[in-house]
């Protein structure tokens, strides 16, 4: 591991991400960081994958034509692009980060308005329109996270880091599929790091009842408690998670 916490893995598409718990130095001794392998193709891999895919090349050519028309003021062309990419933005960028369907829909509407206003400044970079739309959507999401106080998984600082990475992805020419994968992985990593920071019994209660949406009776039976006690355990579990997320894990990007 070098001084920046990166692991040298030449030729590999995996990055090692070290997450440092908030209470890393409690009781005067360091707690170990949580290490996680994250799939992250290099720029050359992305470029070569794209170069070898004639279907993708044809798609990009068609998309470029649409983008040029949209830039010239053709609303139908712009609508076609947004119809294609809007649902992906909602599912992989906005909803996981904002944590509320209503907020994510508001953010998507604001993203569209911003895109309609700013598309004239769009410059084709060879990787399609999606990475540019993704950066716009993330900036809108950041504004919303800052302006609305809610209980949520992501904090504004997480979005600032994500925007920084998304802008690098834009320069690297990351395509829509890889962007989507990366965003969904980031959400799951954030969730996992939060659950890893609390008691395992609490995280089990949250996984079963909240994430897997199992019935109270089923979860109570699994934990060996009564249903009313399960409610208390789940309440304590979410309180503990909220506290753990307050300081949060610091993600250090690890790459070759």
């Amino acid at each position: 591991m070098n001084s920046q916490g990166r692991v040298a893995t030449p030729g590999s598409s995996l990055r090692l991400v070290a997450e440092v718990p908030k209470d890393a130095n409690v009781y005067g001794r360091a707690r170990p960081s949580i290490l996680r392998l994250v799939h992250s193709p290099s720029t050359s891999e992305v470029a070569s994958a794209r170069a070898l895919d004639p279907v993708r090349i044809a798609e990009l050519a068609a998309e470029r034509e649409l983008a040029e028309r949209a830039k010239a003021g053709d609303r139908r062309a712009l609508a076609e692009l947004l119809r294609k990419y809007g649902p992906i933005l909602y599912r992989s960028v906005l909803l996981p980060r904002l944590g509320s369907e209503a907020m994510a829909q508001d953010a998507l509407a604001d993203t569209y308005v911003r895109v309609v206003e700013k598309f004239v400044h769009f410059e084709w970079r060879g990787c399609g329109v999606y990475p540019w739309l993704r950066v716009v959507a993330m900036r809108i999401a950041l504004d919303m996270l800052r302006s609305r106080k809610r209980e949520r998984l992501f904090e504004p600082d997480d979005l600032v880091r994500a925007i920084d990475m998304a802008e690098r992805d834009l320069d690297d020419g990351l395509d829509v599929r890889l962007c989507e994968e990366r965003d969904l992985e980031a959400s799951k990593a954030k969730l996992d790091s939060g659950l890893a920071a609390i008691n395992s019994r609490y995280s089990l209660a949250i996984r079963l009842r909240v994430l897997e949406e199992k019935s109270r009776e089923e979860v109570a039976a699994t934990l060996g408690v009564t249903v009313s006690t399960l409610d208390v355990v789940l309440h304590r579990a979410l309180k503990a998670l909220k506290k753990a997320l307050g300081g949060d894990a610091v993600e250090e990007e690890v790459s070759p």
Partner: protein
Amino acid sequence: MKNRPELELVDAPQPSKKQLAVATEVVRAMVGGTIDRLDNEALLALVLGDDVAEAAILDEERAEADALSLALAGQGTHELAELAFALRHAALPRELDELTHERLLRGALHRKPERRVYWPLVSGMVALAAGVLLFLGSATLERTKREEAALSLQRLAPLVAATRIAPRSTEALFDRALAFELRGGESERVERIVASRASDYRANRFTRWGVK
């Protein structure tokens, strides 16, 4: 310690696997500091065979837990339910339904471009307009005053003309019986005329101004 045999675990019963697991949980929680006091008591109670220490759960906490349970079922709201839903959306984000997406898209595409208001410019223009109005207002007021004064003078003109002291000879100022010296006495004569005409002049001005 060896002097206090009552503290030694002599003949301690072997714990079951479940008890060991729970005890491990308690120790981990205490060391990690991620579990609260009440839950710690509850876990200890479980080791001792109780059902998660019902007695350790306060009424207030139970009420909160019930409210959370209802909020998770879609009845009412609770801040921790917001967090729970956020976790769910992060783990398994759902697709946006097509109708909602179309509505959002159309809303953005058919939106009239927002006219930006440059407030510094607007306030500057308002200030300028106020200045112009003030200037024009004061100029108009001044002109009105002057016009009114002129009008009043016009109206008074006949009266002023009637009561004004007309120009006349200085003869009345001097006694005919007393002959003038050919030389000397000019200053005295001039002063008498000046004093008389100055008095006339003031009287006429007062008349014209309407003082009299």
